[in-house]
């Protein structure tokens, strides 16, 4: 469904993404892993159509990532990106306006679970609340590809279960969710395929349950093995 073909992107001579080739299939939750600077965010930005690679391409059902695929792709960046002048209600209306696949009932349900009031101004949100709002907005879209960059950042321990549940509920047979996170413990249970990047290159991709069965090591141990 989502194909990364020899994607290469360089920044001032350093290769942020170096010949990345792999396939993303629907019905799976992927963990995109690697230390800072390994190229995860860059790849996600290319896959979402935000930036263009130097070489290679990412295609969604054969269509190059860009204007047309943005309607079916969701990218949740690490930064806080909502307009400060908006209230939560305005954020909802914004996404309803631009995206046909935005599911308002799901958004309102998440707001209720997080105990948010639609009248609250974005500018007054704490970083934790902002992180939750980003998740709520992102997961309310019924997209083909979800690219979540560090979705657990800033989310307190108790709220993480809600986030995990929301992600699991979103998984379907015609969409794929790709999560990059430092908090690998959270990913251990929900991710079924892991993609490890190092210096922009793909060093390992595999099904986690198989790795557990054959090597008897957890995702965390595998991570340590690969990057120590």
């Amino acid at each position, binding site marked *: 469904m989502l194909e990364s073909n020899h994607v290469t992107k360089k920044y001032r001579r350093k290769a942020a993404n170096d010949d990345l080739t792999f396939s993303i299939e629907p019905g799976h939750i992927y963990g995109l892993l690697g230390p800072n600077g390994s190229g995860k965010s*860059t790849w996600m*930005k290319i896959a*979402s159509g*935000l*930036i*263009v690679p*130097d070489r290679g391409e990412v295609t969604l059902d054969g269509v190059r990532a*860009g*204007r*047309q695929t*943005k*309607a079916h792709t969701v*990218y949740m*960046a690490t*930064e*806080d*990106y*909502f*307009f*400060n*002048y908006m209230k939560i209600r*305005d954020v909802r209306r*914004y996404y309803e*306006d*631009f*995206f046909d696949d935005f599911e308002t009932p799901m958004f309102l349900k998440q707001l209720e679970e997080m105990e948010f009031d639609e009248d609250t101004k974005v500018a007054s949100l704490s970083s934790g609340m902002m992180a939750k709002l980003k998740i709520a907005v992102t997961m309310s879209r019924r997209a083909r590809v979800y690219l979540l960059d560090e979705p657990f950042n800033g989310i307190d321990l108790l709220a993480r279960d809600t986030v995990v549940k929301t992600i699991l509920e979103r998984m379907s047979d015609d969409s794929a969710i790709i999560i990059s996170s430092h908090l690998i413990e959270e990913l251990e249970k929900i991710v079924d395929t892991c993609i490890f990047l190092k210096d922009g290159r793909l060093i390992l991709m595999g099904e986690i349950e198989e790795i557990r069965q054959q090597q008897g090591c957890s995702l965390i141990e595998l991570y340590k093995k690969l990057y120590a």
Partner: protein
Amino acid sequence: MLTIMKYEIIRQKFSKWIMFGLLAVLEAVFLITLALEKSDAMGYAILGLATLAMFSFLYVSLESIINYNQDLSRKSGYMVFMTPYSVFEILGAKILNSIVMIVMTAVVFGVTAFLDITLLLIKNHSLESLMIYINDIIKQFTDLDVTPASIISVLVLAVIFWISTVAIAFLALTLTYTFLQTAPAKVFISFLIFIGLNVLHSMANNEIMKVLPKDYFSRAIGTGIFTAAIAALCVWLNGWMLTRKMAL
């Protein structure tokens, strides 16, 4: 694209409320003092209106550029550029919105000024001769009759010029955020780049003027086309940089 413009307008609505609120207040004061023939107070009202007009123009001109800077620095750009449109459609919408705002402000203040001056003329016949005098001055300096054609051409040129100014400003900001990501005082640096680009633009424009015939309309058309081309180039460069270099 209209949806993007819609949200640019919504984003800028607060300043409009303030501007037009103040305008309404000052206009009311003007009308009252005109009716009551309190010429001193009326003078202050006129001064207030003129000052408000000046500041409003200045602010509205800058507002789109300020917003774009916010998009790049506060990362609200993610919200805008992840919408299902191409970079060029999005930039185009922002620049168009900037024009719409300026034109709207010009129209509102222009109509108000026209009405106020008309009212003054009705009250005070001696101003009529002043208007004729002003027209003579304009004729002398610009070698031009204040005809409909010339007014339209001036307006068209003003719009084209404004588009290119905003496009150059956007480009200056993008350049700073792309290549000088770690620099402090990005707005100041962008401003310097903006001035530099404008200087280059003027120099190129002068060269073109040298090879054109000397009448007003040839020069107007020449400048118009060149400036429009520069604007298009800036928007294209801007979009290219955003998608290649990831200013966000």
